[in-house]
């Protein structure tokens, strides 16, 4: 069966490796599992709607109309921060293209020298000196790069993220350099909103009970019970989380570094990124420059699609209605695709390396398309003792 190659323009997000889902033609970027995010959204919107429906009319009349107004402002701010955290690029580092990966491999081989057969090669680590402290940069076998300091590979999203904090299922995305401030403001404003709703629920119940009695109040406004329950349980977790992140912020640390204990303990390296001043640390993270995304999601690139040239090809939407005449058959180029074109959503695990290879090759259609080069064999993570131990640790 021969195939005709037609070239079409696609957006770069369609060819990005990794386990992210994209919406709105690449403008929105999230992780694959979004169920808990929908739950978060439902809880926030649901509880606030109950508050506006049951409490606000009474409080606006009997106390002050500014109470619902402030609640609306706070609610909109919380939603804005949540959506900004969930939908933005956390600071994903693009994978190395073939030439860069080969160049790094050659550098590593040169540095290692000759390893006797049967022995494991040394772990791929680069030492750099940052502010008079030695920091180790690890090699990422998936992305084929030496990770910058503070970057880490998220196994859920299958990306290296700069200044990786953690992967938050409540938000449905990783929290990294680009969206950490939105995440912090989200937890802070959500704590305020929860405390606000909880307080005014209690005030409302007390004020109404004085007039009508406690049980009658609960019968008139059944939503209050639900709100109080949700707020009570949310309060402990969200306020605790805000406190924890405020502590990390003041020390300019990430959750990842805190869990691994990178900067704690006597014999360990001290945090070289901290300014040793709480205010300066907070200002840097919250009010510092907004980093742009280095993933060009909405850029255009070319893609070669095979269109089978057979007499009966009714399902092919891109081919013309009339079959290609026999005489032009010989003239058309006969090529086979290198890897199956599987969209981002349904990437099976065994096709991952081929996706990475095709994603790296497709952005450079102008260059020649040579077959796989005879580069030195790329070491697998299993050959490296340290990565295999670390894999067990992270799980």
């Amino acid at each position, binding site marked *: 069966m021969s195939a005709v190659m037609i070239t079409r323009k696609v957006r770069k997000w369609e060819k990005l490796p990794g386990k992210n889902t994209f919406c709105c033609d690449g403008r929105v970027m999230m992780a694959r599992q979004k169920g808990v995010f929908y739950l978060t959204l439902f809880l926030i919107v649901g509880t606030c709607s109950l508050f506006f429906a049951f409490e606000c009319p009474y409080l606006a009349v009997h106390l002050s109309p500014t109470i619902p107004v402030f609640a609306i402002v706070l609610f909109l701010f919380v939603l804005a*921060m949540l959506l900004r955290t969930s939908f933005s690029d956390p600071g994903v580092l693009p994978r190395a*293209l073939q030439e860069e990966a080969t160049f790094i491999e050659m550098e590593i081989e040169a540095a290692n020298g000759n390893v006797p057969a049967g022995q494991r090669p040394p772990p791929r680590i680069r030492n750099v000196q940052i502010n008079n402290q030695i920091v180790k940069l690890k090699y990422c076998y998936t992305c084929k790069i030496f990770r*910058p*300091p503070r970057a880490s590979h998220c196994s859920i999203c299958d990306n290296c993220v700069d200044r990786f904090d953690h992967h938050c299922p409540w938000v449905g995305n990783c929290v990294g350099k680009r969206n950490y401030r939105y995440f912090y403001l989200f937890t802070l404003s959500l704590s305020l909103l929860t405390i606000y709703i909880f307080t005014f629920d209690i005030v409302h119940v007390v004020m109404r009970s004085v007039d009508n009695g406690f049980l009658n109040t609960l019968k008139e406004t059944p939503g209050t019970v639900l709100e109080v329950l949700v707020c009570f349980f949310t309060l402990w977790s969200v306020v605790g989380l805000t406190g924890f992140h405020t502590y990390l912020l003041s020390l300019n640390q990430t959750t990842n570094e805190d869990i691994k204990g990178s900067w704690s303990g006597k014999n360990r390296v001290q945090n070289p990124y901290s300014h040793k001043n709480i205010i300066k640390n907070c200002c*840097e993270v919250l*009010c510092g*420059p907004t*980093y742009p995304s280095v993933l060009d999601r909405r850029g255009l690139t070319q893609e070669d699609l095979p269109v089978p040239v057979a007499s009966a090809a009714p399902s092919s939407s891109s081919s013309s209605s009339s079959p290609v005449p026999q005489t032009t058959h010989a003239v058309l180029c006969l090529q086979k695709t290198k890897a199956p074109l599987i969209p981002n959503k349904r990437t099976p695990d065994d096709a991952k390396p081929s996706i990475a290879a095709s994603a790296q090759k497709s952005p450079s259609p102008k260059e020649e398309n*040579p077959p796989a080069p005879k580069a030195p064999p790329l070491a697998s993570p299993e050959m490296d003792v340290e990565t295999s131990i670390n894999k067990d640790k992270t799980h």
Partner: protein
Amino acid sequence: MAETHSLQDMRQQAAVAAKVFIQRDYTNGTVCQFQTKFPSELETRLDKQQFEETVRTLNNLYAEAEKLGSQSYIEGCLACLTAYTVFLCMETHYEKVLKKITKYIQEQNDKIYAPRGLLLTDPIERGLRVVSCTSVSVLAGIYSFLSSLSHVSTGTWILSQTLSSCVDRGHHLRRQKPD
């Protein structure tokens, strides 16, 4: 066929050898800076001073983008108060400086690097990880040489086939001719 495979391998190796990657310099922390060390592969092609000047200017531009000054604080606070909706209409300071950097790299390519057969790529296209310097003239030279070789070899083959078929035909006709 084996001939074309080896030619393509040579092309790939030539492509690999013709690129130099200037890595990041992390000695000042996570700020975006590139190493000013002059790569040995470019010794014959480029002046050391010019290369260092280019990388130093790039580093200064990136430092300007990431500077923690009053301007970045004001921008941050204003954005926070408007729930970051102000960025829908306004460009961030970092993006403005990135545009400046793209222009500068283009300028450097036109003035200094292209006349020497080199091409610098903007690091934003590589995730701000490397500045890659491609040797365009070497590539072009190798490609043209290899393609001309392949043309010559194909031409020779066709010629030989034609000649042999003519010779066969001649033999055939001579046999048919009555003596």
